[in-house]
């Protein structure tokens, strides 16, 4: 198990390094950063002055090295717009996003996995149809629309939940449902397909022939094998939730990292955008790594290969 973890860790670091270079390069791919910073009315001299102040006149690799070295120490420079250190800005916004992401994926897994298992036990039964309907609806419904409907019904009509903000845990209920419901259909369908496949396998017949009860057959013998692809999918979904919850954060006025990314792009706040891209990518890398380790624990065949 340990060699496997070390190998995956090395791979993750390599990917992280590559991603950091790409996210740094983005600065130069979107045109001359000095000109963009100076604004439309700036003269050529102003642009040159800005170029020198920000160090854009040095070779790109030197700039990258310096940026990476500071980034590792947690220094992402200063936001052009907020005039605050990017690191503290992101740290503050990430709290909301991470809380929302963890709640969202938990909600998605807690609804999708039991529903997928129930649907697989009795294919084409009522519960299978209901699960299919829920997943199709979840996939077809845009998040912003679903969010607005929830606000209209639960906040305005019934007055049960606050419509927006992040002050208390009750503010997170609706955003969690919207975000989680977005991830739920894929997880549910994958769980169902995996369970259907595994339940027809020979080793499940062996488990029954041993005299194992149905619960033991389903959860000890079948689910452990069926859940393996779900783990990988959930890791990607989790990364997506942390980086891409912009829509949900906007609808519910939660000022998280996704919202910050949207603002910063609109304002050409390059250090913030760079740092956010790097942070979001790191989340993907970390979750993929964790999913690999979890899968290797679930399936011994992965450890040796």
């Amino acid at each position, binding site marked *: 198990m340990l060699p496997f973890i070390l190998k995956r860790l090395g791979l993750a670091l390599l990917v992280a390094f590559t991603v950091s270079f790409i996210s740094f390069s983005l600065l130069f791919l979107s045109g001359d950063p000095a000109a963009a910073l100076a604004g439309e009315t700036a003269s050529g001299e102003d642009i040159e002055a800005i170029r020198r102040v920000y160090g854009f006149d040095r070779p790109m690799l030197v700039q990258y090295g310096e940026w990476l070295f500071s980034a590792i120490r947690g220094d992402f420079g200063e936001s052009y717009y907020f005039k605050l250190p990017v690191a503290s800005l992101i740290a503050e916004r990430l709290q909301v996003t991470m809380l929302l992401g963890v709640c969202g994926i938990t909600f998605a897994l807690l609804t999708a996995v039991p529903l997928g298992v129930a649907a697989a036990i009795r294919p084409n039964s009522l519960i299978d149809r209901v699960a299919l309907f829920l997943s199709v609806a979840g996939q077809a419904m845009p998040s912003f629309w679903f969010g607005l409907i929830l606000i209209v019904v639960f906040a305005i009509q019934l007055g049960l939940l606050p419509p927006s903000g992040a002050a208390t845990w009750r503010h997170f209920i609706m955003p969690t449902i919207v975000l989680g419901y977005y991830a739920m259909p894929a997880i549910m369908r994958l769980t169902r397909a995996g369970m259907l496949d595994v339940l027809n*396998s*020979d*080793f499940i*017949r*062996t*488990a*029954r*022939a*041993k*005299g*194992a*009860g149905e619960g033991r057959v389903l959860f000890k*013998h079948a689910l*452990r*094998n069926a859940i393996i692809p779900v783990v990988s999918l959930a890791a990607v979904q989790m990364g997506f939730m942390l980086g891409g919850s912009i829509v949900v954060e906007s609808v519910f006025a939660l000022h998280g990292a996704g919202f910050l990314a949207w603002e910063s792009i609109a304002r050409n706040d390059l250090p913030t955008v760079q740092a956010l891209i790097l942070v979001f990518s790191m989340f993907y890398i970390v979750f993929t790594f964790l999913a690999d380790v979890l899968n290797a624990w*679930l*399936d*011994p*065949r992965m450890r*040796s290969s």
Partner: protein
Amino acid sequence: MTDTLLSVKNLTLNIPTGSGTLHAVRGIDFDLKRGETLSIVGESGSGKSLTSLAVMGLLGKSIKRQADEMRFDNVDLQTANRRVMRDLRGNRIAMIFQEPMTSLNPAYTIGDQLTETLLLHRKVSKSVARARAIELLEKVGITAAESRLSQYPHQLSGGLRQRVMIALALMCEPDLLIADEPTTALDVTIQAQILRLLVDLTREMNMAMILITHDLGVVARVADKVAVMYAGELVETGPAAEVFATPSHPYTRGLLRCIPQPGKTERGAPLGTIPGIVPSLIGEVSGCVFRTRCPHARPECRADIPLRGDASHEFKCIHPDGALSEEGEAA
């Protein structure tokens, strides 16, 4: 306590399909005494695996089971509830399957899977179960048994996995072992070893065995009794020696011609084949099922065929016993 361990009378299995009911098994009878080996022989699709799964109570939900009697020792298998069946399975009736490569759970160690059976049925500690697992792995001829416990199925070869499956089946010292083509998926050299192992173990533990196979060569070496199945019916049953000496159903004789016999089959001579294919069992099935492939088929074969022969050696064919010479098989 009676001597008969398993008794099955008039077992019928029907499978509803889109194009009608598939009469997979039709009215078969067999019984088995303690320590006895019954071999069910037949080609693919003859219903032998379904019959064994019916005894285990592991048929798919869509399959309809009917029987006049299905009794294991003093348990009525037809009326037994799920709890009773679960207590029997793995404990008093154990089963080995055809596919050793996929019959073990890839996610758990050999040790986990072996001890699980014992822990399910007996109130014993984990260390006792572990000791039993090691003892059985040694008994089925696995070296370094203790270190195998922490290995996973994918680390073992097919032959080793089948040995593990046998050890698994024996964990609770069952009274009846059902082996469904246990050697089919293995190399020829391993087949003989596994078979010998099964025979030795049944003798040593006084265990009854139902050996399902399509290989008559296997049957001749191990079985006390033979039941020949064709298209869902038992066409001939009897003591193995008698069935081999005087096969009375044309299908049995056909099967016997398909295998080389040392001393009888000439070198280079072609082996026999049975022309034709198994008839469809969807819809009404009547008369002799083998008549479409039988060289002696007559108009009377369309009628229902009664069982003939004496109580121990029975067969389902209207032809006189002299049919053997009529076929001119000796030539």
